[in-house]
C-alpha cells in the first residue's frame, strides 16, 4: 500500500492464463505486453510509463471476480482489459460499476455483458468485439445469400453459453431468411466423440453443418463427420475456431467457412504479425493476440483524450471513442450499448493448410 499516487499508469488485464481457455488468454496477454512495451518505449502516456497487471480468471467467474477485485484494489489499476468470456465479464460488471473503473472486454459476445436484462447500458462495461446476434446473423446471411444453401444442421455444446447463444441467433435468422434447421443436436463439455449425433444429422441430409463450437470440437466433429461419410456437407462456424484445428482436421475442413472478428491476412495486420512472431516465435498466433495488442492502444487513446486516469472521465472518453484507428479495425463506440459500431465481420475459408481470409462482411437487413 503506497500513500502517494503511483508514478506509473497501472492497467489491469483479466485473462484466463490457466484452465480451459488458456490458449487465448495467454495470447491476449502476450499481445498486450507487446503493446505496453512499445508505448513505454515511445514515452508512455500522459508522461508516465504504463504498468500491466495480469489477473488470472482461470476460465470461471468466481476466480474472475477475485482477480478483478485484486486488480482494482491492490494493484490500483485505472482500467481493466479483458476478459474474452462473457460469463466472467457478466460477473465483473457490478464490481467495475461500484468501483467506477472501466472494463473493456476483448471477446465477450453475450449482449448482456454491456446491457443489463432491463435494457439499460452498464455504465462501466465495454467491449471491442461484435455480439452473438450479429455473428449468428452473419453466418445465416452468408449461408443463404452467398452460398445459396437453405438446409442447415447444428451440432452445439449444450453446456457452453457461447455455443448455445450462437446457434440460437443463427437459427432465428436462418428461419427469417426462409432457410431451415433440419437437425439440431447437442453434446456436453468434455465430449470428444460426436458420431451418434452426426449419424443422426447425416440422415437429414443437411447442406450446411453449423459448428458453433471451439476449435477442438470443430476439428473433431469435422473429422468424424467425414469419417461417417458426410462428404458433401459444408462446415460453418464462428469465432471459436483457431488455426490449430487444421493440424488435426486439415483435409476434412477443406472448403469450410468461419466467421471471425478480423483476419491475420488483413494487410493492416501484417506488421503486427511479424512483430509478434519475432518476439514470441509463434508464426501462427491466435487472433486474440492482436486483440490484446489493440485493446491496450484503444485504452491509451481514451486516456490521452481524457487527459486523466480518473474512472468517470476515462469511462466518458471510452464511451465517446470515435474512429479510433487500431490494427484490426477502426472503432467507434456506441454510447447506448457500449458495443463498437458497424464492426465488420471477417469471413474465412479453409484452403490448403491455411485458413484464408475471404472477405469482410456486413449483413444487410
Amino acid at each position, binding site marked *: 500500500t503506497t500513500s502517494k499516487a503511483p508514478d506509473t499508469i497501472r492497467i489491469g488485464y483479466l485473462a484466463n492464463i490457466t484452465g480451459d481457455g488458456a490458449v487465448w488468454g495467454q495470447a491476449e496477454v502476450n499481445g498486450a505486453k507487446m503493446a505496453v512495451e512499445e508505448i513505454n518505449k515511445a514515452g508512455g502516456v500522459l508522461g508516465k510509463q504504463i504498468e500491466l497487471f495480469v489477473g488470472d480468471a482461470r476460465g470461471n467467474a468466481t476466480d474472475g471476480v477475485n482477480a478483478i477485485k485484486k486488480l482494482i484494489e491492490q494493484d490500483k489499476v485505472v482500467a481493466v482489459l479483458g476478459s474474452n468470456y462473457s460469463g466472467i465479464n457478466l460477473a465483473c460488471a457490478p464490481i467495475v460499476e461500484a468501483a467506477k473503473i472501466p472494463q473493456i472486454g476483448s471477446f465477450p459476445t453475450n449482449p448482456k455483458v454491456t446491457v443489463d436484462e432491463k435494457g439499460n447500458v452498464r455504465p462501466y462495461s465495454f467491449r471491442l468485439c461484435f455480439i452473438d446476434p450479429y455473428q449468428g446473423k452473419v453466418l445465416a446471411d452468408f449461408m443463404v445469400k452467398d452460398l445459396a444453401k437453405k438446409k442447415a444442421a447444428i451440432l452445439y455444446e449444450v453446456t457452453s453459453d457461447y455455443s448455445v447463444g450462437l446457434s440460437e441467433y443463427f437459427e432465428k435468422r436462418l428461419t427469417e431468411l426462409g432457410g431451415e434447421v433440419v437437425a439440431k443436436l447437442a453434446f456436453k463439455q468434455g465430449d470428444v466423440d460426436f*458420431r*451418434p449425433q452426426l449419424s443422426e444429422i447425416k440422415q437429414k441430409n443437411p447442406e450446411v453443418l453449423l459448428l458453433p463450437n471451439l476449435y477442438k470440437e470443430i476439428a*473433431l466433429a469435422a473429422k468424424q463427420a467425414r469419417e*461417417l461419410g458426410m462428404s458433401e456437407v459444408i462446415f460453418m462456424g464462428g469465432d471459436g475456431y483457431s488455426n490449430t484445428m487444421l493440424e*488435426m482436421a486439415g483435409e476434412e475442413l477443406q472448403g469450410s467457412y468461419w466467421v471471425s472478428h478480423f483476419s491475420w491476412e488483413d494487410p493492416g495486420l501484417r506488421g503486427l504479425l511479424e512483430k509478434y512472431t519475432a518476439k514470441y516465435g509463434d508464426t501462427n498466433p491466435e487472433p486474440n493476440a492482436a486483440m490484446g495488442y489493440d485493446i491496450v492502444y484503444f485504452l491509451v487513446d481514451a486516456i490521452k483524450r481524457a487527459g486523466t486516469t480518473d474512472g468517470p472521465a476515462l469511462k466518458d472518453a471510452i464511451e465517446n471513442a470515435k474512429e479510433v484507428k487500431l490494427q484490426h479495425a477502426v472503432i467507434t463506440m456506441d454510447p447506448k450499448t457500449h458495443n463498437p459500431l458497424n464492426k465488420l465481420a471477417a469471413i474465412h475459408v479453409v484452403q490448403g493448410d491455411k485458413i484464408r481470409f475471404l472477405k469482410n462482411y456486413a449483413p444487410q437487413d
Partner: protein
Amino acid sequence: MILSRVLQQLVNGLSIGSIYALIAVGYSLIYSILRFSNFAHGSFLVVGAYAGFFIVTAMSIPFIPAVLLAILTAGLAAVTTERVAYRPIRERNSPTLYFIIASMGIAIFCEHTIVATIGPKFRTYPRVLAATGVDLGLVSMSKMDVMAAFMAFLFLIVLQYFITRTKQGCAIQAASYDLQAAGLMGVNVNRLVGTVFLIAGILAGLSGVFLGMKYTVYPQLGYLTIKAFVAAIFGGLGSLPGAIAGSLLLGVMEAFIAAFLSSQLRDLFVFSLLIAVLLVKPGGLMGKYVEEKV
C-alpha cells in the same frame, strides 16, 4: 432405413465403448487390488499421450518403437506415483478415501504442470493410421476403433488369466483383502503392487496414445476417465469383464440416447439408468456384491 440407423448407432456406441473399455480395464485393475478409484489414471493416460506425441514428432523414431516408449513412460509414471504417493498411505493403513483424494491431488498436479510447462494448446499426432472409415454398406466404422476394441479384449484375457490363474494373481486378490496378512504369506506386497501399477500405467499410456491419435492431446484429456469410471460401475467395480461389458454398454447407451431420445439430456438418462441398474443389482452387472457374514 431405420435398421441402418440403429445399426450405425450400435457401431458408434461400440466404438466409443471400446475406448472406454481400454481405459476402464486399467482403472478396474487398480480398483481390484487397492479397492479405490484411482483418479490419477487419467494423468497416466495424459502422460502417455504427450510422451507419444513428443517422441513421434520431436525424436523422429519409427512409430511402433515410439509408441512402446511412450506407454512405458506412462507405466513408469504410474509406478513412481505409487511409490511416492500411495505406498506411504498404504503402509499406514489409511481408509481408501485417502487414496482417492491423493489421486485427485495428483490429477490436479499433473494437469496444471502440463499447462504450466508444455502449455494448454492441443497437439495433434501425425496421421499414421488413416482415420477414414471402413464403409460396410449399411454402416461405417474406423480402423482405430477396431484396434482399440482388439487391444481391450487382448488385455482383458491376459489380465484375467493373470489374476485368476496365477499365484501372483491370487496374491493380488489376497492383498486387496488384507495387506498385512498377505505379507505374512511371504508376498512382497510393495513389489506386487508396483507391478500392478506398471501394468495399469502401460494400459493407461496405451489408451492415451490411442486417444491422442484418434482425437487430440490436451491437458484435460484425462477427464475421459470419468466415463470409464462410470462404465466400471455399470459393469461392477473390480471385475475386469465387467469393466469391458460396462464400457461397451455405456457407449451403446450414450449413442442410442443421444440419437433417438435427447442429445441435450443424454447424461441425465444415462445416470438414471445407472441408478436403476444399481438398485436392481447393487454390485453392478458383473460385480459380486458379497453380503458379509457376521
